C-alpha cells in the first residue's frame, strides 16, 4: 500500500457508499428547515440569524456523520491494517479525513447559496458565509475525527462523541458567525477569518496525531 493507492481506495469506498454523504446532507437540510418552522419564518428574524442557522446545521451534520468515519474499517479490520502498514498513521488519517471533507463540503457549499436565499441572507454576506465554511469546516472535520477515533470501539458511541466534541466546535462557530455579523454591520471581518484559519491550522497539526493515538489504543 502506498499513500496514493490509499487515497484512491478511500475515494472509491466513499463513492460506493455515497448514501452516507447524502444522509449527512439531508440531515443538514432538515436542521436548517427546523429553524423557520420552529421559531419564526419572517425575514426579520431569519435574515440576521441565517449565518448562525447554517453554521449550526453544518456543525451538527458534521459531528453526527463523522462519528462513523472509522466504524466500518474498525469492524472489518482495515483499521488494524493501516496501523501495521508501515506508513505513517497520521498521514493516512489526514488523507481519510481530507477525502471525506471534499466529498461532504463540495455539495454542502453548492447547497449553501440556495439556503442563504431561502433564509433571506443578504447577498453581500453570502460570500463571507462561504468563506467561513471553506476555512472553518476543516477544523470541524479534524476535531471530529479525534472523537470518532475515541469512540470507535463502542457500539452506542454517537451520543458520547457528540457530547465530547461539540464543546470544541464552539470557538469555530463563534468566530464564523461573528464574521457574518460583522459584514452585516459593515465592520471589518478579515481578522475573524484569520482566527478561523488559525484554529483550522492548529487542528491540522494536532488532530491527526491525537487521532492516531486513539486508534492505536483502540485496535490493540
Amino acid at each position: 500500500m502506498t499513500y496514493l493507492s490509499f487515497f484512491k481506495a478511500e475515494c472509491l469506498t466513499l463513492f460506493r457508499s455515497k448514501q452516507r454523504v447524502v444522509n449527512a446532507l439531508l440531515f443538514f437540510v432538515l436542521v436548517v428547515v427546523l429553524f423557520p418552522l420552529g421559531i419564526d419564518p419572517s425575514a426579520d428574524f431569519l435574515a440576521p440569524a441565517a449565518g448562525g442557522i447554517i453554521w449550526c446545521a453544518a456543525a451538527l451534520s458534521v459531528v453526527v456523520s463523522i462519528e462513523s468515519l472509522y466504524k466500518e474499517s474498525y469492524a472489518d479490520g482495515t483499521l488494524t491494517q493501516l496501523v501495521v502498514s508501515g506508513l505513517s498513521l497520521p498521514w493516512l488519517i489526514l488523507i481519510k479525513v481530507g477525502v471525506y471533507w471534499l466529498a461532504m463540503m463540495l455539495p454542502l457549499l453548492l447547497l449553501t447559496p440556495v439556503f442563504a436565499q431561502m433564509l433571506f441572507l443578504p447577498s453581500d454576506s453570502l460570500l463571507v458565509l462561504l468563506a467561513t465554511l471553506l476555512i472553518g469546516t476543516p477544523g470541524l472535520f479534524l476535531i471530529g475525527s479525534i472523537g470518532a477515533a475515541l469512540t470507535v470501539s463502542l457500539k452506542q458511541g454517537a451520543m458520547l462523541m457528540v457530547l465530547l466534541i461539540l464543546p470544541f466546535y464552539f470557538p469555530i462557530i463563534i468566530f464564523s458567525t461573528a464574521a457574518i455579523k460583522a459584514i452585516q454591520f459593515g465592520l471589518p471581518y478579515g481578522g475573524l477569518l484569520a482566527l478561523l484559519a488559525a484554529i483550522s491550522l492548529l487542528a491540522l497539526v494536532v488532530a491527526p496525531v491525537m487521532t492516531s493515538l486513539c486508534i492505536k489504543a483502540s485496535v490493540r
Partner: protein
Amino acid sequence: MSWIWFHKLGSPKWFYQWSSKWATAVFLIGLLATLIGVGWGLGFAPTDYQQGETYRIIYLHVPAAVLAESCYFSLGVAGFVYLVWQMKMAPIFIKSMAPIGAAMAAIALLSGAIWGKPTWGTWWVWDARLTSVLVLFILYMGIIALQNTLEDVTLANQAAAIVSVLGLINLPIIKYSVNWWNTLHQPASFSLTKKPTMPMDMWLPLLIAVIGFYCLVAGLAMWRMQSEILLRERRTQWVKEKVMNDGV
C-alpha cells in the same frame, strides 16, 4: 534536596502509603481554613460600599472558580504526563479529579448566578466568562462520561488523557475573557502577584478561603485516588495483604 520521594509517587503502592499519612491532615486543614475564611468573609468582613452585603458571595464564588480552573489545569498536566510517559498514576488522578472539578465549576456557576441576580439584574448573560466556564463544566462532564462509558481501561485512560489535554485550550480563554472582550463580568478580583484592589480585611479572608479550598480539594482527591488505586491494583500482592490485615 532529593527528589526521590517525589518520583516514587508515580508508583501506586508508594502513593497509597504516602497519601494515607497526609490525606486526613490536609483535608482537616482545608476544612478549618475554609470555615475560617468563609465564616470571616460572610460574618465579619466590612460591607462593600457599592454592592452592599451581596458582595459577600465572593467568598464562595471566587475560591470555587479558582479551583475549577486549577483542577482542569492539573487534569491537562496529568493527561500530558500520561500521553508522554504512560505513568500509571496519571489516569487515576484524572479519574479522581474530574468529578471534583465538575462540582467546583457547578458551584462557581450557581453562586455566580445568585450573585448576578441582585447586582446585574439577571441570573445569566451570554458573556464570554460565563459561557467559557459553562464549557469548562461540560468538558468535565464529558471526561466523566468517557470514563464511565469506555469499558476497556487502557482505552479509557488514553481517551480521558487526550480530552484533558485538548480542553486546556479553554483555560486561557476563561482567564483572559474579561480582558479581551468587554464583558459584564468584572476583571479578576483576586491575584497573588498584584496588589489587592480591595482592603486588607476583605482580601485576607478571601485568601484563607482560597487556600482552604485548595487543601480541601487536595484531601478529597487523595482519598478518591486511594480507592481508585485499591480498585485498579486489586490483583497485586500488597493490596491483598493490606485487605487481609486491615480489612477494607
